[in-house]
């Protein structure tokens, strides 16, 4: 007797589900493919500003890429090499400098909201002196490029073979927030390995492995 209700519920549910799925049907992808993933970061760091406008080389910050499996997230200290002096956007600092000049006083330290987070993490106060109350603590950057636990990718091998960062990571220098550019799927890796074996990398002959154990161990 209750079957009509059950059937109605089932049909409505299916329709509803179908409508929901229809929207994303065009963007269907394999499970585990997070292409386009662009999580919000604890500090709104702009690669566009640093890598494009300021032309800072990728490996200036990600210095382990050439010698380690991981490219590495730069330490707070690496940021401080510049941000010891650059504490706010250029415009704001310029305005303050002109104002100080006009008022014949020493310019005050202007700290932008985003850089404040860096200084907090480094345990520095408003004058960029070690703070008595705030201990240094790591910045919890959110990882963008995640590979499954059974895959071992080695930056070192690729960087030293001449693969550019952009080849996999895309035009990071144009990204305000970094997003995953490639699918990072096995097929994508293997196609590139096949291609490089046939055509080399930037004209240089290489011998990329197609063995499973090149990445899976």
């Amino acid at each position: 007797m209750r079957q009509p209700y059950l059937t109605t519920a089932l049909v409505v549910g299916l329709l509803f589900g179908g409508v929901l799925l229809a929207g994303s049907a065009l963007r269907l992808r394999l499970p585990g493919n997070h292409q386009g993933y662009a999580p919000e970061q604890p500090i709104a760091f702009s690669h566009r500003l640093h890598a494009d406008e300021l032309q800072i080389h990728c490996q200036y910050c990600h210095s382990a890429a050439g010698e380690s499996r991981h490219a590495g997230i730069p330490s707070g200290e690496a940021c401080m090499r510049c941000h010891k002096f650059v504490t706010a956007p250029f415009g704001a600092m310029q305005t303050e400098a002109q104002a100080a000049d006009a008022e014949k006083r020493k310019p005050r330290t202007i700290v932008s909201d985003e850089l404040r987070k860096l200084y907090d993490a480094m345990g520095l106060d408003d004058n960029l002196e070690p703070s008595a109350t705030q201990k240094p603590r790591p910045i919890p950057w959110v990882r963008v490029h995640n590979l499954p636990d059974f895959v071992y990718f080695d930056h070192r091998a690729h960087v030293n073979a001449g693969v550019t960062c952009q080849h996999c990571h895309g035009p990071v220098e144009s990204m305000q927030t970094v997003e995953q550019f490639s699918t990072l799927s096995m097929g994508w890796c293997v196609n590139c390995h096949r291609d490089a074996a046939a055509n080399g990398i930037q004209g240089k002959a290489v011998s990329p492995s197609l063995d499973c154990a090149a990445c899976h161990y």
Partner: protein
Amino acid sequence: MTAPHDTTTAKYWKSPAARAGLREEPPLPGVNRRGFLEAAGFATSLVALGGCQRAPTTIVPALTNDTDNVRPGRARSFATTCGGCAAGCGMLATVRDGRPLKMEGMPEHPLSRGGLCAVGQAQVMELYDQERLRGPLAAGKAATWSEVDARIAAALAKIPASGAVRVVTTSTSSPTLRRAIAAFLKRFPDGRHVEADSVSVSAILDAHAATHGARRLPRYRFDKANVIVSFGADFLGTWISPVEFAAAWKSGRALPHREVVHEHGAEAGGAADASNAHAPAKTGRTDAAMSHHVQFESRMTLTGSNADVRHRLHPGEMGLVLSHLLHRVARLAGESGSPTPLASPSISAAVLDALASRLWENRGKALVVCGANDVPTQTLVNHLSQLLDAYGNTLDVDRPSQQLRGDDRETEALAEELASGKVAALFVADIDLVHDFPGGEAIAKDLSRVPLVVSLATRMDDTSAASRFVCPDEHPLASWGDAEPIAGLFSLRQPMMQPLGNARSAIESFAAWSGSGGTVLSLVRATWKEVAFPRQAKETDFTRFWDRAVHDGFVEVDADIEKLAYRGFDPQYVAAAATGKGVAVVLHPQIAIPSSRHAHNPWLQELPDPITKITWDNCVTLSPRLARELGVADNDVVSLKIGDGVVLELPAFIQPGQHDDVAAIALGYGVRGTDRFARVGPQWLEGRSTVGVNGLVGVNAAPLLRFGGGVVQYVRDNVQIAKTGRRHTLATTQLHDHIEVPANVAPPGSKPRDIVQETTLDEYHQNPAAGAPHAHHAAEGELWPDDHPYNGHRWGMAIDLNACSGCSACLIACQAENNVPVVGRDEVARHREMHWIRIDRYYTGDDDDPAVVHQPMMCQHCANAPCETVCPVLATVHSSEGLNQQVYNRCVGTRYCANNCPYKVRRFNWFDYVHDDALANLALNPDVTVRMRGIMEKCSLCVKRIQEGKIEARRLGIPLADGAIRTACQQSCPTNAIVFGDVNDADSAIARAMSDARRYSVLEELNVRPSIGYLRKVRNATREEGDV
């Protein structure tokens, strides 16, 4: 004569019961229908739920500061000194992202020469142990260091001038700790530092006091000996400094590389027939130097299992046989007046005559060692050594060992002082007096009457439980320290990580209590500046000297020690020698658990003993004949009673090769807190606990120990053994993964497989390929010659059975490197242990007195791999470099591959071996996948290291050098039995090993073409002596 129940024709066998065709292992309870349905239901719902999970957000905490030593993802090695036991081996600790992960041997170290034992490598598990004490305790409650120090200072101030203050430690060769303790005790008129070892060699030192005038432990030079005679000393397993001795022993037995003899274009390697036995070898007849090793022992030790000739001897008869041997050597030396020993020994006169003349011919190159903790016996050894000109040659008393220096007389005196209430303050470091010493229970009671008891134990042991204050020592991997294992060899220990808790180095604690204070680094540095630096001339600046020491891990300086001369020997010791009486119980350390300190280490608990192959238990081993007489079978719980009423109940295990009047029990079990392992391994419907009826892992045998004759007696006579009727299943792996064809399925008339091959030195001299089986197996081609041309690298490994001692260091190396899980006793009993390497131990010869061959067995990386052809999902495939790859993410767990593997080396993950202990997880290697339930795994030939080596060579733009890639098992092997490399590189060590005439493949007749080769074992004995 063969035993009447010997029904098989196999030359090599693994257990007496299996040889007799009996089913040795008790049947396991099967899964019932209800259980199966329940489990299936749960599994289905869990899988359904698991599918709904969203990928978690991963946080990458960036470092705040750049430090030189931390490069994310890059491992670095630091030189340090192992703290696993008193031997003080050199060690390289691999540190990755600020945490030590893998302990490896230090090739440059003069003692350990690149090897590291299982215990040394497993200490990461003790570092990342939840139950290691993290801070001081006062009356069982957490306290601060300042509070505890103040209360200890107040208690010390109350001690009257006559009050006895005792510091008890295990033997320590650390110059800084010794200084700190001495400085602390200076304040007290009656202050003494007592060194007590849970397994003592006190008698050797006492005997040298008698014959040389100073308590000294000589340094044994097994590498300089042509003839080694050991009376019960397990120097390859547990005695004093096993890694040092194993390396030295091997260096005296290394055989040169010899190619197969080719004659008339025919390959002679396949057959050792008479026609080419005398043919001129390509390399000529070589008289390869190889030491002759004779072992007299009461139980089957690892060392005995490697001896060329092994004699069973009652432990009470050691002295008698020694005095007979001494008598003969003295006669050869022309020494008059040596009294004739009274009783006649059980060893035949012919054997003793031959041995005496062999020793005499090799005087200056002979070494006699004895493991008995008995002063008269050791004095006989000293006199024999003197006659054989061993002092200064194979025995060094002028740069002596300082590894063990415990004095049992002082320990006994301490126990008496405790009983009489004389002790006003007691400090105990690194030793469990209550658990490990004779009269431990009485000591526990006496401790409650001592006004101040301070324990420096790293975890709650029986002594710390009876102490008022517990001031935990820091783990050796997390603090500075030092050692001087051999006089003049200063070895440094440096911290590998930030301390995980608030523990404090014992050095710092004693400095704090003596009022001088100081950090452990400043104290160690000061010692080195004042003690080590002036004794050398190489460096003139201390900072440079120190920096070099930190970098190298050790410094050799002059031995600041008085030279000794032989003073003579009292012949009454010969008269004291007697025959053994009744059934004796022998208490011995176990290779995996050399002392109770390591009982909390799950890796070591699950390491199969190299001889019995038992995990997670100690037991009483009985000879087959004694077991028959008592009507005892394996796993029967028996009670042991010695006159004075101590009764122990342990499961029995029948051990071929043991003396018929001996029951042997391992010490160091039944340790407080091991109830934590009750639920180790997977918990499921049919799962059973890992602990025994006492709630602990194993039974403590120390209550059987007694003081007597100024030493701790590890042998007790006249033990009564009775069956209790109960049974306790021992988890032994000795019959697991058996690669011989079982008798019931073997085709009629089939011959046993030639899995292990051995020969004698004489035959080897005649023909380097001697010992090869007569059957010649024609190679029938490759399965995939076109697919796998092996143009680049082709990885291979060779294992020298002549070098392998079976010590099992490689098992732990592999476990640490490859995240091999611990499964618990019950799972081991179900044949589900996960070790990627196993060491097959084969007996050969007589049932009661067999010879032994150890054979490490792991994935053979076959070129024609049977596993690869049956995998329905291509999860196990061949690599272009000859590796048999296991792809975890493809595997669906059909287990076809394991069934088709002729070597039985594949391991299936029956469960998720839960990793919920966040601290223990710090020991996981981040470069190797942690496998999940339902997939197959096996030896990968450390492909992670291969990749690392190749990528690193490419990064540096240099060709990949031979030896640049070392597998984990190869790295730690104390005897360098394992060679790994690129077979395609003609100049490599592996190519040489593979072309050696001794090389053979296991199950060659299957034509699976393994990449692992074995080098035949060679015994320096006749076929009869060595059971070849």
